């Protein structure tokens, strides 16, 4: 593993995109940043601007209105960017998969690097997913 990838691995900055979410996954993502789970141990920070982000966290079902916004956010992100689909809705569509406003799970719209299933996933599950994501960088 070279120096560039090592630095990238040690400092992933997160940007949170919530689709038509029920807010449960949002709260679990924020839980990871609280003192109990503290993902800043791994150098992860929640940033407010997509220009600074290295990881795009997408949760909630993506409906037709969200789709264009998600694509816009993905285009604005500086590459390389990693995309993580969080929750049943983000991974597969969950209970909204049959809905007529549903625009497809996240991986139909943008390439996804890691999936974290659960409704909502526990913070432990999110951290486990993030560790698997870190192993993907070589």
């Amino acid at each position: 593993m070279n120096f560039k990838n090592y630095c990238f691995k040690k400092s992933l900055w997160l940007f949170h995109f919530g689709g038509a979410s029920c807010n449960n996954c949002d709260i679990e993502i924020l839980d990871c940043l609280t003192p109990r789970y503290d993902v800043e141990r791994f150098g992860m920070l929640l940033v407010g601007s997509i220009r600074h982000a290295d990881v795009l966290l997408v949760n909630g079902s993506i409906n037709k209105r969200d789709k264009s916004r998600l694509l816009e956010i993905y285009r604005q992100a500086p590459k390389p960017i990693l995309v993580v689909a969080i929750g049943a809705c983000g991974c597969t569509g969950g209970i909204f998969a049959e809905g007529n406003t549903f625009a497809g799970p996240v991986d139909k719209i943008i390439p996804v690097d890691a999936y974290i299933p659960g409704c909502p996933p526990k913070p432990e599950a999110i951290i486990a997913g993030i560790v698997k994501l870190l192993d993907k960088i070589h």
Partner: protein
Amino acid sequence: MIRDFLHYLIFPGFIFISLSGALLSGFDRKITAWLQFRKGPPLLQPFYDFFKLLLVKETILPAKGSVLTFLAAPVFAVTGAALSGILILLQAFNYKSGFSGDILVIFYVLAMPSLAYIIGALAAGNPLASVGASREMKLILSYELTFILIIAAIILKAGITLRISDIIQIQAQQGSFIGSISGVLLFVASIFCMQAKLGLVPFDMAEAETEINHGAFIEYSGSAYALVKLAKYMMLFILPSFICTILLGGMRIDGIHILWTILKILGIVLLFTLIRNTNPRVRIGQAMRFFFIWMNLLVIIAIVLIFFGL
């Protein structure tokens, strides 16, 4: 000649300032984490952040802005920070004796990073960046008056001398300026000034993450943002060392004095961190009132006390 270059580039110069600034930034993040009962990032985290931004990430240029100005602004910020750092440290470490009026030059050069952030933000062509730039401008207007009053008070206390090396000499002979009542008042005012200059929490309205998404820096990415970060790290080392030089009796690096120097710098950064973790963000109007009325009043009281020899 080569010795001078080494001074400017390596030891008290650019490389040394960047390294110690990044370490201080890591210290600041670690202390913040401890205050919030977290474990926190490793001490070398600022290095990882910097090299990730510099080497790995793509730099995105604004489509509807001035690209050249946008990219030149972070370079100017780093240049200003390095220049002021060299001017302060060469004399604080007793390598050069400086020239008459250098304390005023340092005052002007220290304003360069903030001005560069404003220019870069206005060149980005983003409405939130403009809001951030306007707030930064108002913040500069409010704290610079207090800062120049502090410098005037220091000059007065040192017996009308405009040289930093003379100020250090006088403190070495008569004891540090902080040992008097006026010195304590000046120290309090300068801590708040530096807090605003660094953009730390009570005065971080220019890059408020939660309301205007990093404000002035919203459009920066990749290596341009790495330079912004570098300028911020450097300022985190330069401003405490400036306070050390003008109020706490200078920084000596011979023998056991190096320990005292490190403790002084760490103590001031610890103070910044404690203030930033125990205060909410104030509105820009509140910040202006705070500096224009209260801090200026404090410094003027200090100047009056200096006239009475206290």
